[in-house]
């Protein structure tokens, strides 16, 4: 089936989110839509899926105009969508989630899942998915949950599948698997719209690429175009994808972790006997598939973990057992894995978020009395230095884009006297422009002689920034290797193969 969008325009107040957008995807084709966060990709797809109504323009399926007023219209027209945030009920089984909203029942209302089960199994077989219909969704890895979403769309005969930022939550391996799945779907005749801002994936998978910037289609590109070309089309200026990393002068050991074991409340060890040294002027990247103990290790360094054995020396001083506040003030900047949950208070103003850690200190406080003027003045300065784009620093932090949220976190953490920067997944979900900014900032800290401990599941990021790479697997550091290691070797290590 083919899908054509003609002159789709949608505005919210004075903001034109989509401006006369024309796009088309043909039978058995993968169209990649590339664009930064806020470029209007999701608005467009929500229009196609019937969650929003366009101000003008038309949608054609197989050449004839269809009117899509709600998602059920889209489903009826053969359009399915897999959202960035999964729409699954964790405590239901795979099968229950898939039939949700389309349950077949007997006359007295008894649920009949057998027909659906047969169809699900045959579909899974057809597309080569391995899936247990009776597994609870909450027990499944993220990549498999996503496959449940895809199957859900296919169950209702979607011939046009929209994937909205499908790899944002996946590990490198899961991403590769997903790309294979998407190719297989295409080869069997499904038309696919693949929305992403990740250049490597888009290049690997698309038949055609359309780039959206500020609500307009600004061009299309061939998958053979270089990453730099795609990035500059997307951002609207030339972009430096590989940050300049000058040879570095290493200083003394700043962080010495020795025999660190972290357990959860039931006594199960999540991090096992981890030891490493980190010097000033050096970036040590901890790579690994999500959930191999990286989060706990990062949190333990500022004493956010409760059950810790072993030693962490910062500048020669033992910090295990200090309060979080004292750990931070020993000279650690901490960028948490989840900005929304742990990095910011969404309902607080940007200015208040910038002093979360230092609100007790001068000039923000005298005794217990806060000085709103000092807080506001400080926010103006930091917003300028870190290029935080907001109408006002009094706006709530939740109104910011992902990149600007991360800038707020960085601005706050780097404005204390710092010896060590601990950054967990600092560019997860960010657009190219913001990634560039964060990377430059991290390297600037390194060049200024600070130690940087970077936790990342993105291989590109690890290879671009690290001086040395520690690979974590099942709670242990499997190896610490030099940054000129090959991707393949790193991939094997992340899968637990030490050789």
């Amino acid at each position, binding site marked *: 089936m083919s899908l054509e969008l003609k002159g789709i325009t949608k505005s919210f107040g004075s903001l034109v989110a989509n401006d006369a957008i024309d796009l088309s995807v043909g039978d058995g084709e993968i169209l990649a839509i590339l664009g930064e966060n806020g470029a209007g990709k999701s608005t467009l797809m929500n229009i196609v899926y019937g969650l929003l109504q366009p101000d003008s323009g038309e949608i054609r399926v197989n050449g004839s105009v269809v009117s899509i007023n709600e998602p059920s219209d889209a489903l009826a027209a053969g359009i399915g969508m897999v959202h960035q945030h999964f729409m699954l009920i964790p405590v239901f089984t795979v099968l229950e989630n898939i039939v949700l909203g389309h349950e077949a029942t007997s006359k007295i209302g008894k649920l009949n899942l057998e027909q659906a089960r047969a169809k699900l199994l045959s579909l899974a077989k057809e597309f080569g998915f391995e899936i247990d219909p009776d597994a609870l969704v909450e027990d499944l890895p993220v990549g498999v949950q996503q496959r449940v979403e895809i199957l859900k769309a296919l169950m209702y005969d979607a011939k046009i599948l929209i994937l909205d930022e499908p790899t944002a939550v996946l590990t490198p391996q899961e991403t590769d698997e997903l790309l294979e799945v998407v190719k297989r779907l295409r080869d069997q005749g499904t038309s696919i719209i693949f929305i992403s801002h990740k250049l490597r994936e888009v290049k690997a998978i698309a038949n055609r690429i359309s780039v959206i910037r500020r609500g307009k289609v600004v061009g299309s590109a061939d998958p053979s175009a270089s990453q730099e070309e795609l990035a500059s089309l997307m951002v609207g200026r030339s972009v430096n994808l590989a940050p300049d990393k000058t040879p570095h002068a290493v200083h003394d050991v700043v962080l010495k972790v020795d025999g660190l074991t972290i357990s959860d409340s039931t006594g199960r060890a999540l991090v096992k006997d981890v030891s490493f040294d980190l010097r000033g002027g050096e970036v040590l990247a901890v790579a690994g598939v999500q959930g191999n103990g990286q989060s706990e290790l990062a949190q333990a360094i500022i004493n956010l973990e409760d059950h810790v054995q072993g030693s962490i020396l910062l500048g020669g001083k033992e910090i295990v057992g200090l309060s979080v506040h004292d750990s931070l*003030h020993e000279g650690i900047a*901490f960028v948490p894995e989840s900005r929304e*949950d*742990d990095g910011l208070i969404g309902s607080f103003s940007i200015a208040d978020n910038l002093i979360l850690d230092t*609100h007790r200190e001068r000039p923000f406080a005298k005794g*217990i009395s806060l000085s709103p003027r000092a807080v506001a003045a400080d926010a103006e300065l930091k917003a300028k230095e870190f290029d935080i784009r907001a109408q006002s620093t009094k706006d709530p932090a939740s109104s910011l884009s992902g990149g600007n949220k991360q800038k707020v976190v960085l601005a706050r953490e780097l404005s204390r006297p710092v010896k060590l920067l601990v950054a967990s997944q600092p560019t997860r979900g960010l657009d190219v422009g913001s990634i560039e900014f964060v990377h430059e900032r991290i390297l600037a800290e390194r060049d200024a002689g600070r130690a940087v401990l970077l936790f990342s599941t993105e291989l590109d990021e690890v290879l671009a920034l690290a001086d040395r790479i520690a690979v974590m697997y099942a709670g242990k550091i499997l190896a610490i290797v030099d940054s000129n290691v090959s991707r393949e070797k790193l991939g094997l290590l992340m899968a637990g193969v030490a050789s």
Partner: protein
Amino acid sequence: MKKFLDRILGSALLPALSFLLAFIISGFVIAFSDSKVLKLVSSPGKFITTALSTVGNAYLALFQGSIYDPNLAHGHGFLQGLYPLSETIVTATPLILTGLAVALAFQAGLFNIGAQGQFIFGAIAASYVGFHYSFTPVLHVTLAILAGVISAAIWGGIVGLLKARTGAHEVIVTIMMNYIAGFFILWILKTTKFLRHGRIDPIAPEVAPSAQLPHLAGANFRLHAGILIALLAAYFVWWLLNRTTIGFQFRAVGANASAAKTAGISVGYATIATMALCGALAGLGGAVHVLGSEYALTADIAGNFGFDAITVALLGRAKPLGTVLAALLFGALRTGGRTMQSNTTTPLDIVLVIQALIVLFIAAPTLVRYIFRIKNLKTQEAMASKGWNG
């Protein structure tokens, strides 16, 4: 200035509209529950006029009983007509303080159901210092109030301590502690230390005149200095929340405890301090109520002040100024309701209907928006759902 006015109007619009809707609907309830009105159903013209006059009389009595009564003014001068207003303020005073105890907890992400018990402990301690000791006038009343505040702060602080150390949910703990407080006052009023000489019903001796809060408008009015204390406390809570590092931490923990913790704020400390302060505020309410208007401790000294406080704090959107206004409204409904019951055929219970409807509409902003066809009604966060998740 304009921005400021917009903000006030924005946040007052929903309560004001809810108030209006509650009165309209209660009007129907009044009309249709009145036997005189119902008898006239067969003749529509008479029916409507009688219904309107019944409702009108009820609301007029409500106003006369709570704000200004021209009958009292007749022959005694305008000021005497304000006697109902004085009564409204006397009723509202403890309610402001217990309301603040709930509102402050809301701001810190805690649901304080325990204002009732905290109020009781404040009242017991203030009463004991009031009747058992004798000091010079200003010192005596100050010490009595302090005793109430401190013992209630400890009572509230226990809840915070339990939550911070063991994770016990404050809702469950405060409900249980309300029972303990309720039975404790029954027991203590039977002990020889508290039971008034020569009495067998549970009542303590009256507090010494030196421990009583002074009247503000002469002996004819019950209006006492407690209202000034309550207003000061409201200002204090505003200042604490918005202008101090402690309040900053409370709000940070309330809005996102996980981010607060990551930034080095001690969630346990904030929880304990919040609950102790909330206890202090409710205890101040108890002390002021005993020393200002009741003088003698009785078993039901706390009435419904601790529970109405939850409604008052919700209505006031957990803001100090909002809480003061909501408490005054509730005080007016309570005192006016009594006059309405005695002067008309409308029962006091209609006041509960009005209160319940106001809260219902406040909790369902979408409904109000739909009824009045308002697009951008500022709803802020729905307070009612907070606290359970935090």
